[in-house]
C-alpha cells in the first residue's frame, strides 16, 4: 500500500514542548471507516497526538497526510482542515453562554456558511439522533455530564467531518453516565465513521476498535488488532500497563 491508500498517514512525527520531547517518531495509519484506539499511561502523548492530527498543535518534525493531503507542510488552511475533522474533549468544552442549539449551529453557520434555517434543521436531526431533541433551548449547565458530552459530539458532527478524534471523552463522567456516551460512539462506528480515540475504557476499546495502539513515552510501542493486544501483548510494557488497568478496575469495583 502507498501512503495515499491510507486515510490518515502519520510518519516520523516529533513534537516537543520546550526540551520535553512528547512525541518521538510516531508512525500511524488509519484507513477509511477504521476505528483506532490509543491507549497508554497518563502523559504518554495520546492527547498531543490527537491534537497534532487537526493542527491544534503544530508538529516539529515528520509528516501527516490526511485524505491525500499533506497537512504538515505549512501550506494548508488550518480552518478549512479543521472543518473536516471533528474533535471531542474530555471536558466537553461546550460554550456556556449559548443554548444547545446555538452550540451546535455556530460553526455550520459561521464556518460553513449555512443559513440559520438549514443549520437549525440539521441540528434538530442530530439532536434527535442523540436523543436530546427536548434540550435544544437549554443552556449546557442545565444538562448532565453525559448529555453535555453527547451535545459536544453532535456539535462536532454538525460539520459533517470525515474524521472524528475523541480524547478520553468519558473520563470526566460519573460511571453511570459513561454508557450513554459510549453507545453514541458505537453508533458512529456502525455508520462507518473513521475515528481515532484515546480511551481508558479497555472493554470498549476491545469492542469497537479495528486497531489498538499502545503509546509509551511518546512512541507507539505496540499496535495490532484488539484481541492480540489485550490477550497476548508482545511487549512487557504493554503487559504491565494492562495489568495496572485491570488492578485499578478491581480496586474501583
Amino acid at each position, binding site marked *: 500500500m502507498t501512503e495515499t491508500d491510507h486515510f490518515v498517514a502519520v510518519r516520523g512525527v516529533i513534537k516537543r514542548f520546550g526540551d520535553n520531547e512528547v512525541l518521538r517518531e510516531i508512525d500511524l495509519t488509519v484507513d477509511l471507516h477504521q476505528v483506532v484506539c490509543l491507549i497508554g499511561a497518563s502523559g504518554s502523548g495520546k492527547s498531543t497526538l490527537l491534537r497534532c492530527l*487537526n493542527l*491544534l498543535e503544530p508538529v516539529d518534525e515528520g509528516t501527516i497526510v490526511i485524505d491525500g493531503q499533506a497537512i504538515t507542510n505549512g501550506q494548508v488552511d488550518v*480552518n*478549512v*482542515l*479543521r*472543518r473536516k*475533522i471533528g*474533535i471531542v*474533549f474530555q*471536558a466537553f*468544552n*461546550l*460554550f*456556556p*453562554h449559548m443554548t444547545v442549539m446555538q452550540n451546535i449551529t*455556530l*460553526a455550520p453557520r*459561521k*464556518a*460553513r456558511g449555512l443559513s440559520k434555517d438549514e443549520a437549525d434543521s440539521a441540528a434538530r436531526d442530530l439532536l434527535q439522533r442523540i436523543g436530546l431533541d427536548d434540550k435544544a433551548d437549554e443552556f449546557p*449547565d442545565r444538562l448532565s455530564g453525559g448529555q453535555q458530552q453527547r451535545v459536544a459530539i453532535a*456539535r*462536532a458532527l454538525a*460539520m459533517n467531518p470525515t474524521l472524528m478524534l475523541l480524547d478520553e471523552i468519558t473520563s470526566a463522567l460519573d460511571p453511570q453516565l459513561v454508557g450513554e456516551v459510549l453507545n453514541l460512539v458505537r453508533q458512529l462506528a456502525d455508520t462507518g465513521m473513521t475515528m481515532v480515540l484515546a480511551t481508558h475504557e479497555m472493554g470498549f476499546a476491545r469492542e469497537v476498535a479495528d486497531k489498538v495502539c499502545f503509546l509509551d513515552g511518546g512512541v507507539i510501542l505496540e499496535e495490532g488488532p484488539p484481541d492480540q493486544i489485550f490477550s497476548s501483548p508482545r511487549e512487557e510494557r504493554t503487559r504491565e500497563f494492562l495489568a495496572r488497568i485491570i488492578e485499578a478496575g478491581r480496586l474501583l469495583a
Partner: protein
Amino acid sequence: MGKFLHAFFSPLGLRRAVPQVWDGFQTNIKMMVIAEALVLVLALVVAIVRGLPGRSTLPLRAIAVAYTDFFRGTPLILVAYVFALGLPSLQLAVVSHQSLITYGILSLTIVYTAYVTEVYRAGIESVHPSQRMASRSLGLTYAQTMRYVILPQAIRRVVPPLLNDFIGLQKDTAIITVIGVTDALAQAGFYSNDFFSYAGYTLAAVFFVILTIPFARFTDHLIKQREQLERGQLV
C-alpha cells in the same frame, strides 16, 4: 461652626443655587455620557489589539501597551491641561479649534480608555483557553472565535468592574473644570462669588452622589447575582 453651617447649608442658599448649578451639572452629564460611550468601544478595540496573535502584530501590540501604561500613570488633570492648552497652540486644522468641552471629553476618554482596556483584558484572559481551543477546532477563525465565543463571555464578567470605573469617570468630570469648562463646579464657584455662599458646592456634591448611587447599587446587584450564579453552579 454656625458660620460654617450657614455658608454650606443655608436652606435659602441651597434653594437659590439650584438653577445655576443644575445648568453646570448638565455639562458634566454630557461629558460623562459621551466619554463613557467612547471608552466602551475604544477600550474594547485596544484590549483586542493587545491580545492579537502572531509576530507581525508586535508593533501594534507594543503601541497599545505603551498607551495603556502611559495614560494609567498620568494624572487626568495634567492630560486635560495638555489638551486644552497644547492642542489650540499647535494651530492645526481641526484638532486646534475645538471647544473646551470637547477637550475635556477627549481627556476623560483617553485616560479612562487606558483603565477600561485593562478591565476588558482581564475579562478576556479569564475565559478558559479550552473555550478558544474548542472554537478553533470547529474551524472557526481567530476573529470568529473572539466575536462569538470569547468576547460574549468576557464582557459579561467585566460589567461590574467596568461600572466601577465609570463611577470614577463621572466624578472626574469635575476635574475638567480646571481648563475652564462651565460645569457644576464652575457654576458653584460663580455662585459663591455672587452670593458669598458655598451652598453651590454642597449642591454639586449632592448631584454627583445622586447620580452615582444608582450606578453603585446596580453594580452591587450584578456582583451579587454573579456570586449566586456561581454558587448555584457549584451545587
